[in-house]
């Protein structure tokens, strides 16, 4: 699988100084939906801004096998703040996009506007937050891009519209394209992502396929005084007053604990995996 985005040793320091991203290496393969997860301040947005060339950075980033500037016509981006020109109507917005984006599909945009029940002739300034987001997404979905980058695309949408948007990304958009997706709603990511990278304190601490998480990782709940494991066998360990929680992919440990009557085993879903990874890594 060829790589659409290649990041090598990405570092970004903001004035302060604040190191937002540290030695990030990341590859996003052709045709995959790659989710970038992390708590606030983990470096997700800075990584996206670096890919898009919004900030100065050190390291190497290639997009569609070239530098970003020569590929901009093939990239679509939905930022966290879905602000579009409020003096325009959706009709005017479509005309604007058609005039500046070479592969923009006017008919498709009109279809999406209709699908999201947006009035064509009403000024965007009179739209609700959800309507503005829907319009931004309609324009982006119609761009015919090779790489789509979404930063919290469903924020502010009602559950039905959110469902609709996720279906479009997963079933329609992805055909022939690649998606980089960030969200704090893990259930969304679990629904649409093929591969996940987790960022913490500016580092990428995990990258893997969603299927691999369920296939290879196990969570064990153990008595709080349990100590028959070594830290290099675990990915995350979380202690509280009542129990010890271990996340592991070590086959020996999984076999041993699986036979232990005092241990309770669970196959992790992404939400649990993500939480344990973030909260439990400090004990590893």
């Amino acid at each position: 699988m060829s790589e659409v985005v290649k990041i090598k040793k990405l570092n970004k320091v903001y004035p302060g100084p604040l190191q937002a991203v540290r030695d990030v290496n990341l590859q996003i393969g052709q045709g995959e939906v790659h989710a970038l997860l992390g708590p606030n301040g983990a470096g997700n947005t800075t990584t996206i801004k670096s890919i898009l060339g919004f900030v100065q950075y050190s390291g190497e980033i290639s997009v569609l096998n070239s530098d970003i500037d020569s590929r901009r016509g093939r990239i679509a981006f939905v930022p966290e703040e879905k602000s579009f020109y409020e003096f325009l109507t959706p009709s005017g917005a479509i005309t604007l996009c058609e005039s500046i984006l070479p592969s923009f599909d006017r008919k498709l945009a009109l279809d999406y506007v209709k699908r999201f029940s947006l009035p064509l002739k009403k000024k965007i300034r009179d739209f609700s937050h959800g309507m503005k987001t829907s319009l931004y997404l309609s324009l982006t979905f119609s761009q015919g891009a090779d790489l789509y980058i979404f930063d919290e695309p469903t924020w502010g949408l009602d559950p039905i519209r959110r469902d609709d948007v996720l279906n479009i990304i997963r079933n329609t958009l992805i055909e022939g394209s690649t998606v980089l997706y960030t969200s704090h709603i893990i259930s969304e990511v679990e629904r649409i992502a093929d591969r996940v990278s987790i960022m913490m304190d500016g580092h990428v601490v995990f990258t893997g396929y969603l299927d691999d998480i369920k296939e290879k990782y196990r969570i064990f709940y153990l008595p709080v005084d349990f100590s028959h494991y070594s830290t290099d066998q675990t990915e995350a360990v979380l202690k509280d007053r009542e129990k010890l929680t271990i996340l592991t992919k070590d086959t020996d440990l999984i076999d041993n604990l699986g036979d232990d009557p005092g241990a309770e085993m669970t196959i992790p879903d992404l939400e649990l995996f993500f939480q344990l990874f973030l909260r439990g890594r400090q004990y590893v």
Partner: protein
Amino acid sequence: MFRKSFLEMRTRWLIFIFLFCVVLTVFLAMRPFAGEMMAQFEMSSEELEKMPEFFRQMLGETSQMQRLKDDDQYYLMSQWYAKNFGQFLPFFALIMAFPVFSREVEKKTIYFLLARMKRSRVFGLKALPGLLTTLVTVAFFALLAPFLMILLGYDVRYTGEVFLILFQQLIGAAFFYTLFLFFSVCFNDQIKPVIIGIIISIGLPFFSLVSGNDNWPGLGWLNPYPYIQGSSLIQNGAFDGIYTLALALTGVLVLALGYVVFKKKEF
């Protein structure tokens, strides 16, 4: 994209169009009364001698007042180009330039453009429509005033001086536009470029005042208002080529600097 840029500036442009129309109407309406008003200021040289220096400077020379009364062409040059229209040009350029980039950044709409287009293209598509609109508007109102005076039967012609003063006003407006555009690039909100622009617009004539001081005789050169208002053209028919070149080059340099800042800026 040009259409979008024009729609963006439409409201503030229309406000200035309205303002220019009002000023032009007042300018034309005052012409018949200019003679009477000037006659009230006419006084003998003895009376003028008794007045404080400040008042004498304010009234100007009696010969100029007499000329204003009798000469329609002089009324056009001194009251339209030098005063009513000319003095507004830096403020017009400010209003056209200050939100060009700062509003996009403040409203976060800039991400839409930056993600999809090279910065050089974004800069061109954002900066040029405002500059063109500014220049076309200045040219239109500069040429409209003599046209309307001719229609109203005044003895006015499109002389070489009219076109030279128009040229100076275009150079001056372009200079101010690039200067205020630079501040629009530098700041992430709309307030700072406006405040700096107002301070510059109001503060520049200060250089002319200071240049009266023997210690700082050259500072008057830093005030482009006399150039934009065509003072030397009106007073002695002299076109200031060196100042034209200096202002045009400075404008190009400031525009280039704005482009470099925009290319390097983090969003």
